[in-house]
């Protein structure tokens, strides 16, 4: 029952997000600030994780595909497919659910418990539009972050592969270029846009509708992380089934 109630509340929240918009002059500043908080400030961690996990993926692929049975370019090819199809869009989004998601929940949640949201409402401001809409717009830049993750993941893989002596640079690059299906890129970015929307709205929902005090803000962040992950994984499955299945 509460589950259905929350789904309903979430949908109503999405509707309200587009009603009674905040003045553009103010909204512009909010979008810039949220872009910095969510996208720009994640560049470091995302680059770091992509580069090294890319390396690890490649080493493991190389180790399990040794022998003359496999073509030399296979490692590069498999690295590209793994990173573009799954690692960059999905795994990075899960990491972002922890980083950006809990940031969004705790910042909106603490505004709720300290009555800052009430203060917005009594002034006649649509607090849902004011707080959540700029985050959705800011995360439209999320595919940019994922592109960087894809690039650095493959670069890390190449580094690990060539310097670890698992294969040669030219074999790896040949692998990257083998059987490239442009639709896979489209699929990856469709996923990315959906995940961006989930990353902006699900944590906002948990922060906005929380009750209680400072302790509950912490709990809400945890719950929000779990639900953001679950939603991302479910949509990952559905989109993959629809587009590739």
């Amino acid at each position: 029952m509460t589950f259905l109630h929350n789904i309903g509340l979430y949908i109503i929240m999405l509707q309200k997000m587009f009603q009674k918009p905040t003045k553009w002059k103010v909204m512009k500043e909010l979008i810039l600030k949220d872009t910095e908080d969510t996208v720009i400030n994640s560049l470091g961690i995302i680059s770091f994780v992509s580069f090294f996990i890319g390396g690890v993926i490649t080493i493991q692929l190389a180790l399990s595909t040794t022998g003359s049975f496999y073509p030399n370019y296979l490692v590069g090819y498999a690295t590209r497919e793994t990173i573009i199809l799954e690692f960059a869009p999905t795994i990075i989004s899960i990491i972002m659910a922890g980083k950006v998601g809990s940031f969004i929940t705790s910042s909106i949640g603490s505004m709720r418990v300290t009555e800052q949201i009430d203060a917005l409402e009594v002034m006649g401001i649509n607090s849902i539009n004011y707080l959540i809409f700029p985050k959705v717009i800011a995360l439209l830049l999320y595919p940019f972050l994922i592109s960087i993750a894809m690039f650095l993941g493959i670069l890390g893989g190449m580094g690990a592969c060539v310097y670890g002596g698992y294969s040669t640079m030219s074999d790896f690059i040949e692998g990257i270029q083998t059987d490239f299906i442009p639709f896979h890129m489209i699929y990856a970015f469709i996923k990315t846009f959906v995940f961006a929307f989930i990353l902006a709205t699900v944590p906002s929902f948990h922060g906005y509708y929380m009750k209680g005090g400072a302790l509950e803000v912490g709990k809400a962040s945890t719950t929000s992380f779990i639900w953001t992950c679950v939603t991302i994984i479910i949509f990952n499955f559905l989109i993959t089934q629809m587009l590739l299945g």
Partner: protein
Amino acid sequence: MISVKNLKKSFDNNPILKGISCDFEKGKTSLIIGQTGSGKTVFLKCLLGLHKYEEGEIIFDNNNLESMNDLEKMTLKSNIGTVFQGSALFDSMNIEENVMFPLKMFKEMPFDEMQDRVNIVLKRVELLNSNKKMPSEASGGMQKRVAIARAIVNEPKYLFCDEPNSGLDPKTAIVIDNLINEITQEQNITTIINSHDMNSVMEIGEKIVFLKNGNLEWVGSKKDIFKTKNKAVTDFVYSSELYKKVRKMYLKS
């Protein structure tokens, strides 16, 4: 003037306000007092439109809240200033930006003019040279002053303050109470203050509304409070030895 008639509000079938009727006059500070949990905040939030109530009427200068359309409600909201219990300052903005916020959102005026207006109200609440401080760097008393400045920057007709002096030392508490009272008289505002503090009652209690368990138990002024025979009021007001003594001395003289 604000008239409230037979206001009823419950949460999950648990009645919190059980039919409250009361008038709040213009240019005057009315105090709502009562124990923690007696429904003071819920009452204010009904007036503010943050809670939906089941029954009753709330009338702002002959305009019934129920029969207002969205535009009229917006106009009403722009005429209300609110000071929340914990100040509710936006912690991502500095003091000046907090006070400027309502102007930025609702007024089409050049930045310099907004700046001037902000400085005027900050001066009025006696808060100078702190424009660029963040709320977290300000003391409790300063935060309250900022909250008051933000509430009056748009020159409201109505001012609602939820326990404006809670968490302050007694001296600062009285200063804040008096500040609100003076501004109310200067600008002819209809002001309602929630409080559980006897010092406020003695200081600015021209009109006192006593709530108990969601009922309006007693209405009067600070002079009446010494004479009243109402047991609920005397139990609440004279819970400390000091006030018992004060009452004895007052009645003797």
